[in-house]
């Protein structure tokens, strides 16, 4: 049975998705433009037996969700620019200690306090490389309210499946925009829970990975008395100074995402069969790209769109195929050119790449994309 269609904000859809995915713990700190996610979590969580905490700061919010996740609770925090910077320390911790959790960043203008109530896409590279050291990342970017719901669920599923922090990279437009959405029936939603050990506590090696490179995870307080650390550690979970252990761990962390790229990567493309010019964009800008494509098609220009949904890992294989077919790739971004670096790396020799950048903290309009394309063709 389908639920009634509701008018809903992106931030609200995020909380609905999180609850549907099984979120039972939220910790965070108020920050514009993500605050509604905290407010709604505070309201909704105790109703489903979950728990909400407003922490003393952003760092504490990130730390608390890791602690909660270690007990088995699906956990999330949400923030925006400055808070995302503060959370990086413990995102790295979740990464090396392999603790599933979801971090939402509703992007606003930066750097620093920047433009708190206006949209931007300035954290594309921070989402990838924000915390120090080599580490795996999954980052998802919704471009509609309904997709925010779906991707929040996906974020929890990936976090649980691969034991890794997952970033939901929204922007202020998507967070605050209201759309009429029909949420799926809970029975239609796929929910993934982390693997738990099926061996006895005596036999349990907390960081011994299965063939999928992901180790089963025991909840704290259930008799599996193991050690968790942010130091380089071996299969037992205890720190090690061995260079071989470090090499093995860091490679496995990265490879557990790499070998599952086909399952993780997702994108949306339109009119790519005959496209000569490809508009590559994500988040709110992808909505303008779609309109721009339609205008260009009406004017006889064969335009198509490519929208990475997982910006990390980037859908590299598919873009490479498309780059061999199109002449030009235009990359409109609300930053000075971040994801375009990845596009250039992937298909620099095959297609001409054109940037369209805006850092005035307003959305890129369809006409701006149209004129850019007419100018470069």
């Amino acid at each position: 049975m389908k639920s009634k269609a509701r008018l809903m904000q992106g931030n609200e859809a995020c909380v609905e998705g999180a609850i549907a995915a099984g979120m039972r713990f939220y910790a965070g700190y108020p920050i514009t433009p993500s605050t509604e996610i905290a407010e709604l979590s505070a309201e909704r969580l105790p109703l489903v037996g979950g728990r909400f905490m407003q922490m003393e700061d952003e760092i504490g919010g990130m730390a608390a969700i890791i602690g909660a996740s270690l007990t088995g609770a699906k956990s999330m925090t949400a923030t925006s620019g400055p808070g995302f910077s503060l959370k990086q320390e413990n995102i790295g911790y979740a990464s090396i200690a392999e603790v599933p959790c979801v971090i939402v960043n509703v992007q606003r203008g930066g750097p620093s306090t920047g433009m708190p109530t206006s949209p931007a896409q300035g954290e594309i590279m921070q989402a990838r490389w924000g915390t120090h050291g080599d580490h795996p990342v999954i980052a998802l970017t919704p471009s509609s309210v309904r997709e925010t719901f779906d991707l929040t669920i996906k974020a929890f599923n990936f976090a649980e499946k691969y034991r890794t922090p997952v970033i939901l990279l929204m922007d202020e437009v998507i967070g605050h925009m209201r759309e009429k959405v029909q949420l799926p029936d809970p029975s239609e939603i796929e929910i993934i829970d982390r693997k738990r050990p099926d061996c006895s506590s005596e036999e349990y090696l907390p960081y011994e990975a299965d063939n999928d490179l992901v180790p089963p995870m025991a909840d704290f307080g259930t008799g599996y008395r193991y050690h968790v650390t942010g130091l380089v550690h071996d299969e037992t979970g205890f720190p090690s100074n061995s260079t071989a252990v470090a090499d093995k761990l860091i490679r496995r962390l990265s490879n557990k995402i790499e070998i599952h790229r086909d399952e993780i990567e997702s994108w949306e493309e339109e009119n790519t069969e005959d496209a000569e010019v490809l508009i590559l964009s994500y988040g709110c800008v992808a909505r303008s790209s779609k309109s721009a494509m339609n205008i260009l098609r009406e004017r006889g220009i064969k335009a198509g769109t490519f929208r990475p949904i997982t910006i990390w890992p980037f859908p590299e294989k598919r873009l490479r195929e498309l780059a061999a077919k199109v002449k030009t790739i235009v990359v409109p971004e609300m930053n000075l050119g971040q994801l375009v670096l990845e596009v250039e790396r992937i298909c620099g020799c095959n297609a001409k790449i054109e940037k369209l950048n805006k850092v005035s903290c307003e959305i890129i309009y369809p006409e701006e994309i149209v004129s850019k394309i007419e100018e470069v063709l």
Partner: protein
Amino acid sequence: MPSVLVENYFRTEKLPQIWCPGCGHGIITRSIASAIEKSGIDKNKICIVSGIGCSSRAPGYLDFNTLHTTHGRALAFATGIKMAKPEIKVIVIMGDGDATAIGGNHLIHACRRNIGITAIVYNNSIYGMTGGQYSPTTPKYDKGTTAPYGNIDKAFDICKLAASAGATYVGRATAYHASLVTSLVQNAISNEGFSLIEAISMCPTYYGRKNKKGSAVSMMEWQKNSAINISAAAKMSPEALEGKFLIGELKNSPEPEYTNEYQKIIDRLKKESQ
């Protein structure tokens, strides 16, 4: 074959610890294990959390669910554990820099919430792991590698800080007074709300050497001679208390515990929806 206490509560294959000869941390860690033994709590329902620093290596030696977190953040991680699974007894081990400098914000707010966590601060008045820099508890005019001419910062009184921030059980002991550490920690564990025990430790390697305090033994002699139990202090003149510090139970005033208060909200909402 180690002692029964060590055999039962330590990961004996990890011993001896990496700590320097005469480091007070081993004594305090043993006292904590002894308090846990006396409290009779199921080992599987205890979680020990630490930050980063010499003291924060303690959980690695203890046979529980143990979590070695990031510098200063132990209480925030611990808060998540306690909130998500209140039946777990959460014990947090921190150093003085860890708890009161980089983790100071988490400390005062954990106190304020009165969340059911037992925090034990191993106070050796120095950053040991990084090689002897002055900390927020280094006494004024003492030396550290980053205070070569003497420290001009005023030191924190961790117990006063915790008590005024809202911790409901507060106590202080020293490595010399190891059995007092045990009894205070035992009381702290049985307090439902937030408890803080300051355990004065000694770092002969850096603090001791920098400040010519002599060997571990002489640092313990100093603890013995400078600590006055709060009950004895009541009968002493201010002159006699000059240069001394108080040990013992400094605050014991139970108040409603945080996760219980939250549970009341959940229960109320459940009732209302029926």
